[in-house]
């Protein structure tokens, strides 16, 4: 570490009948007749409009609210027009810096949330197979009593708190805290089955596991490689930015996917790979890059550790081997590698296609290594632009609704609990005593990762002697979660039936309410949507956006934080939970929660975004630059929209947010950053810190470790702290100093509070140090299993035995010869309950289907539009329509996962509470999916399994 003292460094603070269904051609003949007309009958024509006309007198004054689309993480701005409390209009937010007024089908239809005809309207419980209405009081009492009883008998770990990426940041944070105060780490949310392998893989490479740049920054890319990502359907407004780069910047777009997606249709080059061969594919690109010397030597030398070991592995991936494993021909690989090398800066975009694999962490790390080798990191136009899913999955991840960490990725160590109990102002000992005190496999439950959402069914069904906690899961709380987005539907049904009680807190009843044969012990509690409350939400690019409340809660629904208050009081820890949070009219004050978040989230810089600053950003959408997101003039000039985290220090310190992670061309005070020093300073005699690389205006002209009181003293900067700061900073580091002084002083000297290190291409703490290709558990390529086997079975991962080899060893490729993969449709989101209940969307996709290549269809003896059974390798089967298309390759079939309300051929629509069934129901793809979990994060495998297909008779 070299120090260069600078004098007087100024402190830098400061179809005609197909009706738009052209793609699902068969619907023109069959589906629309069956589904469309029937469904139309269910809804009185012009109903909406009449309802409104009746209530809103003409000329009633119009209030305009600013909110954010609740469907995906692009975070499109919305102007909602409200008259007499009714949401009467939706105008395009042309001045919003992310979307310029644009929306996809979902965003353009959000006003339906103001009607909510198919919502769950009041608390209900299942009694003898019938839904009975309850009062809120009675519901909380009954459910609470049950939970307390289970807690008494089986310990706090037998109640599972499954939270949601649909929460606001404040609700997400409160939910994690709530679970902690209940005394369990059995708390999780959709991020586990969405981007957990990104978060872990990417954070272990360079510090933070998030999208490094932004949608807008893609404008500056010269090449864009999308792998396992289909923004044209999943993040449509992102295509506005991608196509802009294509047009204005002549960006070369490469789309890598087993399916010829709608995104592929807009790419310069489409590359079809075999599902599950991502690592082989990426190493194949790198083979050409290394072979031709296209890598960025200087970048690697200064900022990357361990590339030599990657080189060794890559050398095995000759063009022949890559073609053998991934199916991509050598000349296409070379051409793609050359384009990426010649068009820099370039960005890589990935989504579920890369993450939802048993080998998800290997995939995400391979993508990162590709960008490191090309020197694309920390640059405008470069970066890993990882598109998150739900509107607030980034925020809910950051705020820790995860079984392996407290908010802010602090983990579950004693130090982490100490930090948070201090922020929460609760007694640490009391908190520890809320947990089961027994030790399982050397760990107390308080320090042991809880059961992840992907495995909750095993938490119910597994022999309890094999689980690292007192008892099985007995009460399951699905709070904003669609169970049909999870694999192994048949076993899930068994698990639901075995539970003592299932509690669903959601604006809609969901598939979980109907899929089992339970006759009682199910409670439905109506939560409201984010349009019925206010709070902040973190977009994929880490910008935090404020939402106004648009309308009052519909029917008897309540906002999630109010429901948490009700439960916490019933369960006996309301006082501790809301110690520094005011309750007004039964509702915890949102801004108080934001402030508590600011008080504790130092690790990732959620500390500077006070509610006041967030609201000021919200009021000034028009002042931010469409390309850079930087405020140009106006009241927040120089700040980046939504203060993308890290927004260091306290709000008073005025950090502008970090628009691009690890960008050394700017001073840290102006949003610059280095790679984080997270993995030590030295390994096997090699320096892990950056060499000769540092952010602009840094006083330390080399790598340095993370900041602590000790480092400040060593550097002679301790006296830059105020007396007050000193008192709090003593014995603390940049993550635990609640005064923010350590961060302030580091930034004053141009340094990143978290140090300046190399990114690491090898992760010695992971099962595979260098990412390796491993065959999927269910693979048709038996010839590759011995060369690229999976891992050995494990006795315990996240409290549960986890199988690998014993599954892969069974050859089922004869009985189940076809690869089954899954994905999204633009009209629907997640499990689809909300979007299938929106008539404007539901009308566009009325039938669940499976895409099959014509060759396979002909071989298997069915035609386009026929009903077929798709049976997964573990026996779960679904009856769906065949859509015969070349979109998928021979031997591969695809199903969308948004449908629910049918189970193995049975239509369960009648089992929904009256008037609360979605307009469209269908088989859940995941009824047919199978076992398989990533060893690092327990990500589920949804993208490669095996199946067989038969024409359905009668």
């Amino acid at each position, binding site marked *: 570490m070299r120090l260069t003292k600078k004098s007087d460094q100024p402190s830098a603070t400061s*179809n*005609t009948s*197909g*009706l*738009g269904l052209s*793609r699902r051609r068969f619907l023109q003949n069959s589906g629309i007749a069956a589904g*469309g*007309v029937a*469904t*139309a*009958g269910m809804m009185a*024509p*012009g109903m*909406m*409009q*009449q309802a409104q*006309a009746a209530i809103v007198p*003409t000329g009633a004054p119009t209030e305009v609210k600013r909110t954010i689309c609740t469907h995906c993480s692009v975070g499109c701005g919305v102007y909602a027009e409200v008259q007499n409390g009714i949401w009467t*209009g*939706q105008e*395009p937010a*042309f001045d919003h810096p992310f*979307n*310029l*007024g*644009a*929306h*996809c*089908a*979902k*965003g*353009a*239809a959000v*006003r339906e949330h103001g009607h909510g005809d198919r919502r769950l309207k009041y608390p209900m419980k299942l009694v003898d197979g019938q839904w009975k209405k309850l009062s809120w009081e009675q519901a909380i009492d009954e459910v609470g009593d049950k939970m307390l009883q289970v807690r008494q008998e089986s310990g706090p770990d037998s109640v599972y708190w499954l939270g949601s990426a649909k929460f606001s940041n404040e609700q997400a944070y409160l939910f994690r805290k709530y679970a902690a105060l209940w005394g369990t780490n059995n708390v999780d949310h959709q991020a586990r089955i969405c981007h957990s392998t990104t978060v872990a893989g990417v954070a272990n490479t360079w510090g933070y596991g998030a999208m490094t740049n932004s949608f807008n920054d893609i404008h500056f890319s010269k090449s864009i490689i999308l792998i396992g990502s289909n923004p*044209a*359907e999943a993040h*449509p*407004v992102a*295509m506005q930015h991608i*196509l802009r780069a*294509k*047009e204005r910047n*002549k960006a070369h777009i490469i789309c890598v996917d087993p399916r*010829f997606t*709608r995104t592929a*249709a*807009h*790419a*310069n*080059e*489409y590359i079809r790979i075999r599902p599950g061969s991502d690592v082989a594919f990426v190493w194949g690109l790198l083979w050409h890059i290394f072979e031709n010397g296209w890598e960025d030597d200087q970048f690697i030398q200064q900022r990357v550790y361990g590339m030599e070991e990657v080189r060794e592995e890559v050398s095995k991936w000759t063009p022949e081997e890559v073609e053998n494993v991934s199916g991509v021909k050598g000349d296409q690989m070379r051409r793609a590698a050359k384009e990426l090398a010649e068009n820099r800066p370039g960005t890589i975009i990935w989504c579920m296609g890369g993450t939802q694999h048993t080998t998800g962490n290997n995939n995400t790390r391979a993508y990162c290594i590709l960008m490191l080798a090309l020197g694309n990191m920390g640059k405008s136009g470069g970066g890993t632009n990882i598109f998150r899913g739900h509107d607030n999955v980034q925020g809910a991840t950051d705020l820790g609704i995860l079984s392996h960490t407290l908010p802010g990725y602090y983990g579950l160590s004693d130090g982490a609990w100490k930090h948070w109990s201090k922020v929460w102002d609760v007694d640490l000992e009391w908190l520890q005593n809320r947990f089961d005190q027994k030790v399982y496999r050397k760990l107390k439950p308080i320090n042991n990762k809880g059961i992840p959402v992907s495995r909750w069914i095993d938490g119910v069904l597994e022999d309890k002697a094999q689980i690292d906690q007192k008892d099985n899961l007995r009460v399951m709380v699905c709070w904003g979660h669609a169970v049909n987005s999870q694999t192994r539907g048949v076993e899930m049904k068994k698990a639901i039936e075995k539970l003592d009680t299932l509690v669903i807190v959601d604006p809609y009843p969901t598939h979980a309410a109907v899929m089992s044969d339970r006759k009682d012990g199910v409670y439905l509690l109506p939560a409201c949507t984010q349009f019925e409350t206010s709070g902040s939400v973190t977009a994929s690019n880490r910008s935090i956006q404020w939402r106004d409340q648009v309308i009052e809660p519909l029917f008897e629904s309540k906002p999630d934080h109010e429901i948490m208050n009700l439960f916490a009081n019933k369960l006996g820890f309301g006082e501790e939970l809301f110690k520094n949070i005011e309750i007004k009219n039964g509702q915890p004050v949102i801004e108080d929660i934001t402030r508590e978040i600011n008080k504790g989230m130092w690790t990732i810089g959620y500390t500077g975004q006070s509610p006041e600053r967030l609201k000021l950003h919200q009021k000034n959408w028009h002042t931010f630059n469409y390309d850079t997101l930087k405020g140009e003039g106006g009241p927040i000039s120089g700040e980046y929209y939504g203060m993308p985290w890290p927004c260091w220090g306290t709000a008073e310190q005025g950090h502008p947010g970090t628009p691009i992670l690890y960008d050394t061309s700017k001073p840290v005070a102006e949003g610059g950053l280095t790679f984080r020093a997270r993995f030590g300073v030295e390994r096997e005699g090699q320096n892990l810190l950056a060499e000769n690389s540092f952010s602009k205006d840094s006083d330390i002209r080399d790598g340095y470790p993370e900041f602590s009181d000790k480092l400040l003293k060593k550097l002679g900067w301790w006296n830059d702290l105020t007396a007050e700061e000193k008192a709090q900073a003593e014995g603390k580091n940049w993550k635990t100093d609640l005064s923010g002084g350590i961060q302030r002083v580091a930034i004053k000297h141009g340094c990143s509070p978290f140090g300046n290190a190399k990114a690491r291409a090898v992760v010695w703490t992971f099962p595979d140090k260098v990412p390796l290709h491993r065959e999927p558990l269910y693979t048709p390529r038996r010839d590759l299993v011995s060369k690229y086997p999976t891992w050995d079975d494990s006795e315990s991962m996240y409290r549960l035995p986890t199988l690998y080899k014993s599954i892969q060893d069974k050859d089922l490729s004869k009985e189940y010869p076809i690869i089954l993969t899954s994905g999204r449709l*633009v009209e629907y989101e997640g499990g689809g309950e909300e979007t299938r209940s929106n*008539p*404007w*969307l539901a*009308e*566009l996709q009325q039938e669940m289907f499976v*895409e099959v290549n014509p060759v396979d269809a002909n071989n298997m003896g069915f035609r386009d539009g026929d009903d077929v059974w798709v049976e997964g390798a573990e026996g779960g089967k679904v009856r769906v329509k065949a859509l015969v*298309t070349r*979109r998928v390759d021979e031997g591969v079939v695809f199903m969308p996962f948004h449908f629910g309300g049918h189970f193995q051929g049975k239509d369960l629509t009648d089992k929904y509470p009256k008037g609360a069934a979605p307009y469209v129901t269908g088989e859940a793809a995941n009824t047919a999916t199978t076992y398989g979990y990533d060893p690092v994060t327990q990500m589920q495998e949804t993208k490669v399994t095996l199946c067989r297909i038969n024409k359905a008779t009668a």
Partner: protein
Amino acid sequence: MAKMKFLCDSKRCIECNGCVTACKNENNVEWGIQRRRVVTINDGEPGETSISVACMHCTDAPCMAVCPTDVFYQTEDGIVLHNKDGCIGCGYCLFACPFGAPQFPSDAAFGERGKMDKCTFCAGGPEEDNSPEEKAKYGANRIAEGKLPMCAEMCSTKALLAGDAAEVSDIFRERVIYRGHNDGAWAQTTLQNETDLAYDATQPKA
């Protein structure tokens, strides 16, 4: 006088149906009626191309020419509108329209078509601008409020353009210039030799 037209830039349209639900939302269009829809050719194959279509507000509108009760009229801005009160639901306009724009409610009694509904360019109908009657029968009248059609305003990729033909073509021309000649920036895949669609639609074709 402005001449209102739509243009859908097929190189940008991603078949996201934003325009379709925007129209439903803005005009409270009932289930079964599609004033706007997205049509895709070469679905699922190289060359896959989508465009969003509605009433084209033809200058010499065939619907207008054939309607037996003469309910159609054209505004000063060239928008083709109709008077539902006079519509007998015969469906002749649908027969005449090259784009299948006229729509008929599916819930009408058997054998009856009900009154025709179609894209109004978000310009309402013959009733008083933005009156409850106009809203109930035809949906929004954004033109009277000085706004443009909702479908185009909300298009996710700005593929769908609406407005005065001269302005629409200016925007499109600018894009074509950025894109360069034929497949300069727009070849779909290297495996394919289709003619590029990014010609300057405002110029007569050579």
